[in-house]
């Protein structure tokens, strides 16, 4: 073993890497917001009166959950231009993350909605609340609270899978580190440091979710 570790390229590239951390963070947050929107929309469609609509949602969930994210991101990357949508890699990655995370979110949120007893909804309607108010206040909020732990771990996974967006060269930490690596050939040093960055990012994500949980869901149950 006659290799000396040299972290100089990593230190020189530190400003770029830290900026890229922010890129990863923004990518993850945007993906999560889209995933939540798709998740809530999917739950509504999943309980549709029309069978074909329900089947479509189930098919969507199973296709996404049983194929690799890398293949999905390639597919979306090539499919969007054919559909007449020209986007940069980063927005494309957000869409892919949102679709992937959304499929998981539908199942998670549905579990939460099912945990709300029907009597609560009926009580809300009897009190004269509007349907949308009942959904927002009596169904959605307590449901979100019930599923928050599983949503958190799913979204930490989503944060980690942003690294796969480097395959279509979206702006995030992995693609920037690959550029520094190919400039300096200090592969191990670069990837080792970046791995540590990811550890910090996923820890911060968990803290963020814990904060939200304490801020919005810490009311007494009964």
């Amino acid at each position: 073993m006659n290799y000396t570790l040299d972290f100089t390229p990593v230190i020189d590239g530190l400003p770029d890497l830290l900026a890229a951390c922010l890129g990863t963070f923004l990518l993850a947050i945007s993906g999560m917001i889209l995933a939540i929107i798709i998740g809530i929309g999917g739950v509504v469609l999943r309980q549709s009166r029309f069978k074909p609509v329900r089947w479509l949602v189930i098919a969507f969930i199973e296709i996404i959950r049983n194929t690799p994210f890398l293949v999905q991101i390639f597919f979306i990357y090539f499919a969007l231009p054919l559909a007449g949508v020209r986007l940069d890699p980063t927005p494309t990655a957000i869409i892919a993350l949102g679709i992937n995370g959304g499929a998981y979110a539908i199942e998670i949120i549905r579990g939460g909605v099912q945990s709300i007893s029907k009597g609560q909804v009926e009580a809300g309607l009897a009190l004269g609340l509007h349907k949308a108010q009942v959904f927002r206040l009596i169904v959605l909020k307590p449901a979100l609270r019930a599923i928050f732990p599983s949503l958190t771990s799913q979204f930490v996974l989503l944060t980690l899978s942003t690294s796969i967006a480097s395959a279509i060269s979206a702006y995030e930490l992995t693609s920037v580190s690959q550029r520094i690596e190919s400039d300096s050939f200090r592969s191990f040093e670069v990837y080792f440091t970046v791995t540590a960055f990811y550890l910090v990012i996923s820890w911060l994500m968990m803290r963020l979710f814990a904060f939200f949980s304490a801020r919005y869901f810490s009311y007494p149950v009964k």
Partner: protein
Amino acid sequence: MGRDEFFFLLLGLKWTVALSAVGFVCGGIAGLGIALARTSGIRSIERITAGYIAVFQGTPLLMQLFVVYYGLALIGIRLDAWAAVSVGLTLHASAYLGEIWRGSIEAVPRGQTEAAKALALSYVWRMKNVILPQALRISLPATIGFLVQLIKGTSLASIVGFTELTRAGNIVSNQIFQPLTVFAVVGALYFLMCCPLTIYGARLERRFAASAR
């Protein structure tokens, strides 16, 4: 896409299956060790394994593969991409399976351990014949869920440069310029591998939930 291209994808599929199998079997053996260490009751060992699990669950699989790939070369072990990716997936799987199995070992009622101790059974005997068979049953749905995740994770080996299904798809799509068709077929092949497992896992989960009631 002609028959030759499809055959090339099937060759890639073979390597995806091989990678998944190696990762799952070797990762399972190592994961069992992790789970036992994590529940050993010895404070320092529990701390170390908890840290090991946290590192692997808090970093992307892609980075783990990179670090193993270049790290092994650094300490003088020259491995081809196949072996390096196998090692990476094994470490990854050992952490996740270790955590799943820790949970199921702890989910076995305490009375079982106490009864085994009262009967003066040795640690090995107690684990092998009392705790682990019950824990295995509890862990089965989550273990199958992770196997699906692992199969999907092998696609990242393509980024390190190993030709499995996804990379075979990349190569074919660069040759025939029909990325959508190629990746739809690649996706379908993954789906055919994963979906039966997902269905089986969900069925087990339902059955266990019913019997627990």
